[in-house]
């Protein structure tokens, strides 16, 4: 009789263990995400900067991409983070470009609404790297990068994305397809065309 009325009592120790486990999982997740973001943030920034040609806007786009990844996809397996992150990043870049197009249509006729490219350049001293190998090498790399950026600018957006993710970021076709939101076949086509055009333009310069 007495045994049928007794309420089963949850042992205290397992609950504590579960709580600790959750905290550990959260810490692990946070540390893993920290390492992942630290590994991609500079590359993502350069990609965004090449696309929008503005350092502050590029930083904003990268920050938003980091926040969205942490908010919405941190619980996903860490192997999925890279394509997801770059998908968010490119969505941010496309949003920025759409906003710029609308802004230029609305305010384009106003005097002073168009910024000169020279005005967008910050103080060059601010851009000197701390760990640059040497000045000549940096100069040559800088020139080569300028050529690459100009050539990338001339590509259609999807070809540019495919080349950036496949070649510069070293992602495989499946990851690139996830990041671009298209099929593997489309990635191959975009990448092949991008490669042909870039080689034709930069082959002699490089």
């Amino acid at each position, binding site marked *: 009789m007495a045994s049928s009325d007794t309420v089963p009592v949850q042992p205290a120790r397992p609950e504590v263990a579960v709580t600790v486990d959750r905290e550990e999982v*959260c810490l692990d*997740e*946070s540390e893993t*995400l*920290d390492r992942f*973001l*630290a590994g991609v*943030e*500079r*590359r993502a*920034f*350069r990609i965004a900067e090449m696309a929008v040609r503005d*350092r502050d806007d590029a*930083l904003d786009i*990268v*920050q938003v991409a*980091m*926040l969205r*990844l*942490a*908010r919405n996809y*941190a619980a996903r397996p860490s192997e999925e983070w890279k394509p997801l992150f770059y998908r968010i990043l490119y969505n941010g870049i496309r949003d920025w470009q759409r906003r710029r197009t609308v802004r230029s249509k609305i305010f384009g006729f106003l005097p002073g609404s168009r910024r000169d490219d020279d005005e967008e350049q910050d103080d060059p001293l*601010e*851009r*000197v*790297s*701390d*760990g*640059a190998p040497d000045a000549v*090498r*940096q100069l040559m*790399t*800088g020139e*080569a*990068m300028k050529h*690459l950026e100009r050539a990338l600018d001339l590509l259609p957006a999807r070809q540019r994305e495919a080349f950036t993710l496949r*070649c*510069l970021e*070293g992602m495989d076709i499946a990851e690139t397809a996830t990041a671009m939101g298209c099929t593997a076949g489309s990635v191959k086509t975009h990448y092949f065309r991008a*490669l042909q055009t*870039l*080689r034709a333009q*930069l*082959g002699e310069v*490089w």
Partner: protein
Amino acid sequence: MNTDERTEGFEKRAREVFNESVAALDARTRSRLNHARQAALDELRTPQRRTWRGWAPAGAFAVAILAAVLLLRAPDDATPPQVAEGSAADVGVVEIVASGEDLDLASEDLEFYDWLARQPDAVRNGNG
């Protein structure tokens, strides 16, 4: 050197140039990226605050809609139909006037109505 080798060489060169441009990022930009990363990680570490903040705009919107509905409906609800005492007689008079009934009958028998008014209630009700 065949096409594949040339393509591989081009890809390798592009990667090198890009990697070096990434390595050459200035300290200020790296610092700002670091701050952005910490902000994103803070978001991950405090999920309960995020949940509350996530619902805040929806709550504010709902309150605003409710306030707007109440304000729009308030004048109608605040003036219920006023029925004063003795208004039934007034309504009767209005109905008679509005119906366009011939009032000459009343003027012809004024003496009768005067007599009727002076009679006790029992007579007037036909009980007397």
